[in-house]
């Protein structure tokens, strides 16, 4: 353990799952037979957390499954395999980007990468990793480079599963992160097996409308002062400075054309687009999908590993649940991130149209708790909850979930693009 701490995040519960695995999905077994259990209020509950999952009494899809199996179906019959932005995943989960901040320590990041590979779920490598930490070629020794992470991920990755999504933000364009990866011999196994994606970073949940920020000591800052703006917010005599990235300017046409250019330049990779929880998130997602994006990630205003102003963390950006309501159910691949660590929040987000959920802070905490198997255990627990909850709804795949599975059923938001208001609900 490194003393990594979180605020506004159920750290203790995550660490417990990293130790106990699936057993942590239930109350401690010492209480079994002695204690009566009921609903408990959840601290820091947002709009998504406040929804309830609503199993019906009558379950035609359970009948279909019963006929298929020739026996009554159980939660173990839920098939969690999911195609995430063109990548086949063992679960409707992926490892979110960690960014270049120091909170994401080298060993934790590598341990998380290795375990994500073991689990067969996709992994996102964050923006600024290459300009800040290097790529890992040409004599760079640091293990936290993009190449170091890809190597760790590939060590236990099963054939045919998973994949790596490499982010590039506006300022990463200077480091040509995508060109570097696309032409690199080390990335060829991913490229040739169709398991490489590039994610265009338009925004992030913790600081909607702002670029990346990290706190650097002056020596590190001096190395990057040509690439990034440095702000002496801690005073002229302080050892540390704030490093700010530009968020990049986007209009509808800029987003559309950037996606087309990605498809033009990298025809063999999947194209992902990451949006902040902006008020026009539904329009932006629609433009991205229409331009050919294989996935759109909506990062809820929930926090992250980077440095963010208190004002934006507390007051800026739509809640993730509202983003999902505005986008509405559609056939395209929508990824969500923001405070995911257990099954019910994932099920609710899938019911509202998401295809998969990203684990960010939870993954870091779990690997901090146990570098070898913390994330694996956390995910085993989460997977058990997914199976239990999805089967409780009389459904047996994540894609079968729909808005009818939560209450209150979200109304189509007036902010969604008029031509895209729920045309097709998930079959369910």
């Amino acid at each position: 353990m490194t003393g990594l701490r979180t605020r506004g995040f159920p750290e203790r519960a995550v660490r417990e799952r990293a130790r106990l695995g699936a057993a942590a999905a239930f109350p401690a077994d010492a209480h079994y037979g002695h204690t009566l259990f009921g609903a408990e209020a959840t601290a820091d509950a947002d709009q998504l957390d406040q929804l309830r999952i609503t199993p019906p009494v009558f379950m035609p899809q359970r009948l279909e499954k019963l006929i298929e199996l020739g026996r009554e179906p159980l939660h173990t019959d839920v098939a969690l395999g999911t195609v995430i932005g063109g990548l086949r995943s063992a679960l409707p989960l992926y490892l979110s980007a960690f960014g270049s901040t120091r909170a994401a320590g080298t060993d934790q990041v590598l341990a998380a990468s290795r375990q994500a590979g073991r689990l067969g779920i996709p992994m996102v490598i964050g923006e600024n990793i290459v300009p800040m930490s290097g790529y890992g070629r040409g004599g760079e020794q640091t293990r936290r480079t993009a190449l170091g992470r890809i190597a760790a991920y590939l060590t236990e990755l099963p054939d045919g599963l998973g994949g790596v999504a490499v982010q590039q933000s506006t300022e990463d364009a200077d480091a040509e992160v995508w060109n570097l990866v696309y032409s690199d011999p080390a990335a060829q196994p991913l490229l040739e097996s169709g398991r490489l994606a590039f994610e265009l970073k338009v925004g992030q949940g913790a600081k909607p409308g702002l670029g990346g920020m990290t706190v650097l000591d002056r020596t590190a800052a001096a190395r990057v002062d040509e690439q990034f703006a440095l702000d002496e917010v801690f005073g002229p005599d302080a050892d540390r400075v704030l490093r700010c990235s530009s968020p990049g300017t986007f209009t509808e046409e800029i987003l559309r054309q950037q996606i087309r250019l990605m498809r033009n330049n990298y025809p063999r990779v999947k194209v992902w687009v990451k949006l902040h929880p902006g008020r026009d998130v539904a329009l932006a997602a629609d433009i991205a999908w229409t331009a050919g994006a294989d996935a759109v990630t909506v990062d809820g205003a929930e926090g992250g590993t980077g440095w963010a102003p208190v004002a934006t963390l507390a007051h800026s950006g739509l809640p993730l649940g509202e983003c999902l309501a505005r986008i509405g159910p559609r056939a395209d691949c929508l990824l969500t991130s923001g405070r995911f660590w257990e099954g019910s929040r994932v099920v609710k987000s899938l019911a509202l149209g998401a295809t998969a959920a990203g684990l960010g802070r939870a993954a870091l905490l779990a690997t901090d708790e146990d570098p070898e198997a913390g994330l694996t255990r956390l995910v085993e627990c989460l997977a058990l909850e997914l199976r239990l909850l999805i089967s409780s709804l009389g459904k047996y795949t994540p894609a079968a979930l729909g808005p009818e599975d939560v209450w209150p059923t979200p109304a189509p938001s007036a902010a969604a693009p008029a031509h895209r208001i729920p045309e097709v609900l998930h079959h369910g």
Partner: protein
Amino acid sequence: MTTTADAPTTRGLLLPPADPRQHLTSPTTRTVLRLQQHMLAAAREYLTGAGFAEMMPPIIGPVTDPGGRGSKQVDVDFYGHKYKLMTSAILYKQASLLAFPKIFCIAPNVRLEPLETANTSRHLAEFHQIDVEMAGASRDQITAVLEELVRHIVSRVVTDLPAEFAELGRDTSVFTALLNQAFGRRTHAEAVSELIGLGHPQNPDAEIDWEGEALLSSRSAQPFFVTDYPKGSRGFYDRESAQDPGVLRNFDLLAPEGYGELCSGSEREYDYARIVTRMRETGENPAKYGWYLKLVREGIPASAGFGIGVERFTRYLAGLDGAWQANAFPKLPGVVSP
């Protein structure tokens, strides 16, 4: 995979010999380089005669052509500042028009192309271009220059070097149409329709892919232009049509017989606000183009221009299997070589 040149072939294709002596002393190489030398002399003859000033091309700069199709730039340490080897001199060509209204240069370019291009027969990591830029020119005017230039070069080498063509086993009657008829012309949209009609899947928003180019090329008896590429397929400097937004005022020249693209060109963007916007549409960070944007903001001429790939053009004229055969020190993508 990085390959050493010891292996004679990669993916069934001929590779350059590992020993540069073997390549440089081969009768084929010597004949091809004589042909190429004559082509360059003919290009200079035509362009100088047409009033174009020859400029020495820059080799490094703080910024270069962002290029496309996944090729990586080469970084150079310039006294502690990150510079780039030229992937193309396009930004400098536009700037050069502040000195002369019509310029050309024969410029080296370095692009770390994706490894998969090692077997296209057309890609080299280091190659040369006959780069031409003309102030105030429209697309029709610049394609006329290109057509005349190509015809002049081909006419010169066919007339002056019959023995070299004979040594290479290249029948020069294949150039009859090129020398006597106007080049064909079709739009990108028409090319896409043709490819889809032929059963070749082609993204209508993107470049014609390499297989598609070779397919179109193999169905033609003479060079032809493909015009009006969609915006998401090219760099920020190709001018967007005012009448037809999303369509670029650009062109490629494709050789016949399956040899594929020889040349790309366009009318250029020259308005500051349009260039900044187009930079964003192509995912670029305008901050790194400081010197260029300052020039543009203060005013550069409207222009059009093109760049002919010297090795590709030589390959087509000489009827070679691969573009590397038209380079004395060939570097295929990913192949470690002298």
